[in-house]
């Protein structure tokens, strides 16, 4: 990726570039390899940009990886963990997949919706919390019902435990 390093990328900070470069080392040095790096690169950029991916960030990733922007948009819109619209300061993902559902995830969702006054897929008016629509299992079935808040997992949820966790969010 020496040719890419020489260029100035307005959209990406030095830190972001360095982190993406570390991922690129793990993939073959060709177009398919760079395509493989889209997911980690988007994670890096989303982490540095308030939890979501403005168009210029996706474009910057595309330019850095020498790919068409549409290839990056496809990935960013495909996966639930990427957001292409602004989100709150915290992202709350309550798993509703089968194990969690059997252990009462639907009641948990109802409780949180009522508590925050928003539905799944919405953000609180103060911009504090986005309640994400989580479509897939987060692979923590042993602790069902569970949720992911930003980059942390919380398991064996009860309404009381959730209240405590949510109230602590700034």
């Amino acid at each position: 990726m020496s040719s890419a390093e020489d260029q100035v990328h307005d959209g990406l900070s030095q830190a972001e570039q360095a982190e993406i470069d570390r991922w690129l080392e793990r993939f073959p040095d060709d177009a398919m390899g760079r395509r493989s790096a889209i997911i980690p690169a988007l994670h890096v950029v989303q982490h540095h940009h308030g939890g979501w991916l403005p168009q210029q960030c996706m474009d910057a990733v595309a330019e850095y990886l020498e790919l068409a922007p549409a290839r990056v948009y496809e990935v960013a819109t495909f996966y639930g963990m990427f957001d292409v619209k602004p989100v709150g300061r915290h992202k709350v993902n309550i798993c509703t997949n089968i194990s969690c559902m059997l252990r009462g995830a639907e009641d948990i969702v109802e409780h949180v919706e009522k508590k925050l006054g928003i539905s799944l897929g919405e953000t609180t008016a103060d911009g504090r919390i986005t309640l994400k629509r989580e479509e897939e299992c987060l692979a923590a079935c042993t602790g069902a019902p569970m949720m992911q808040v930003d980059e942390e997992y919380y398991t064996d949820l009860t309404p009381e435990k959730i209240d405590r966790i949510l109230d602590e969010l700034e």
Partner: protein
Amino acid sequence: MSAEVKTQAPEMVSIEIDGQSIEAPKGASIIAVADEHGIDIPRFCYHSKLSAPANCRMCLVDVEMGGRPAPKPLPACITTVVDGMVVRTTSERALKAQRGVMEFLLINHPLDCPICDQGGECELQDLALGYGRSVSRFVERKRVVKDENLGPLIATEMTRCIHCTRCVRFLDEIAGTSELGAMFRGEHTEISTLVGNGVHSELSGNIIDLCPVGALTSRPYRFRARSWEMLSHPSIAPHDCLGSNIDLHQVRGHIKRVVPRDNEAVNECWISDRDRFSYEGVYSAERLLSPQIRENGEWHSVDWQTAIEAAANALKETVEKHGPGALGGLISPSATLEEMYLAARILRALGSDHIDTRLRRGDFRDGVNASGFPGLPVAVSALESLDAALIIGGYPRHEQPLINHRLRKAAFRGGQVMALNPRGFDWNIPLSDELVVNAAAMPAALARIAEAVAARKGVTLPADTSSWQAESVSAAEAEAVAERLLAADQGVILLGGLADAHPAGAELRYLAGVISSMLDLPCGELTNGSNAAGGWLAGAVPGRCADGAEVAGLDASAMLSEPRRGYLLLGIEPEHDLFDSAAAAKAFEQADQVIAIATHDSPMLREQADILLPMAALGETAGTFVNAEGLWQTFAGVAQPQGEARPAWRLLRVLANVLELDGFEYNAPDEIHHEIKAISHEATVANLAATQAVAPARIEGMLRVSYPAMFNVDPLSRHAASLQESEHAAPAVVVLNSSDAGELGVSDGDQVEITQAGVQRKRPVAIDDAVPAGSFWMDAGVSGSEALGALMGPASLAAAEVD
């Protein structure tokens, strides 16, 4: 990238499809082999020119290997044939799988074919008839997808989309613009740009043909006709020297749309947007509908008899008063072979040898190359297997979009495509070398390449190149190009439109010829218009009659700088279609008679012509175009000419009859065609190594560098409404290097005043360092660029006062 079956020396395997024993190349997909043997497997996402992603699953077939059936049906588009394979495309299991896929596709697809523009020619509709259930088992609501505005050419109805992704793959693999993608997931999947940028590829219209449903349709054609009421006629696209094969679809003499006709040797299965949508120009409100004569400054519509007699008298009078040399003919390079031939014969019969079709040429010092017609020295289809191509002064992506596609394929196969241009362009070909120099330094750059070739090859230069001294490319750049050309088994040197319009174009042709002769590489031209080769063959160039006789005549430039008293113009709008419109305006002003045979009305014709004769346009006339490769392609007149317009060959014949000239008793254009063919002596493409030697010309000061925008190359395309709505046809902007802009004290969006050949014009500025300092770029053929001086030549710029 491509799923084509043919390889160089394919190893053959024996397979059986539906009981038929077949020898097939190893590694080919089942569906490709089945297609070749006329066995129909249903499909939506598969297309022989695109990669196969196997995402529609419609082509599931039963496969058996060594007596063991595969555990489940396999997609025929990505399953490759191996020896002993037995395929059943219509077994119970295959049919059940195909019907299942169809049922899933119809869950969300609307069932309102009667109100869909694709109805009657829809692949989904056709296959649903064979594989669909007559009653749906689904009662759930169907999904609805918001439509996206993809621009003036393509209409969307994305609710109908079945996510075959042919459009996505076409833009990615063929057009190289990657503008569309499959956004979101599962049931929420949408084919979209996501960000609303639209689709701008020069080949974008092909996604309309590729779309198997009514999701992407032609915006200009939408709801204008039904596929079953139209008649289809083969024709030839009239805008570039490729001569794409097209079908005209008409209802009661009215062309409703243009679609590609497969011809692997010419346009494969594609056409450019210019060729697809220009038919709208036939029905433009600016069509010239009746013969008109100017009397005492007033225009009058007259009947044909009066008009032709007036034209004949005008020609005769001019000859009687001022001698036969007082006549000059400027004939569109996109006129038919027959029209060119008749126009040339009439002028020559009246005693004038001043006729030219090279209307955008900037330098005539090398005269007419007698060795052959200007064109491609290799077959169009061979371009894709070149291992080196040097393009001099050309941007085929806009000039000849499908020749560009062939070169792009060559580059993706490992070929080295190189370009030397007076500005950087937005190539979709990965160029190995892009040399951008000030237009004035282009000959010097070629001289350096010639020297590098001679040095590397250890031969003496067959020419003295030391007199080209302008600062151009570095020694390393010249050597890199020389090395690639030297290493090429199959190489070619091509001069494009910007070399044609170059004020030192003769030097470029000469030096390109010098390089090609040292390397023994073919060298040719990608010519302006659809029939530049025809101009040479028809004898519609000064210095050459159709039978090869050499005569002396004035070229397009000399006819204007040494004004004639009478002009015959055919198929042009002089404010856009000439190298130097300002010079033309002056010359026409001094002329007694300007007779214009034209498809469209234009302000400059109105102002300066004396007689206007309306001629038939695309589809309304029969004729022949000779493409760059030398292919004579004839087409018939199938549409009713608008108003009183008549095929130009016919009105030229009548004009000759009224003038009482001998040998004009033609009843049909094919008689003219055969006459030209008989005297053309199997002429072939010119050898540029035979170009006459020329010395460097002095080109100084700020240079205007222009070439017609992609959709503004001729009257027809300029009057096609939808093409003109595209951003490619935007009004002229002065594109300037940041250093020049700094010196003038202007920034993006400011106005500058251009002064060229006494014409002044204010235009907005765009700053772009793709244009070298000392020159500015401006699209020609667009609003704001008309009636200026030389396409490429000196012009001064000054910051304009804000009004």
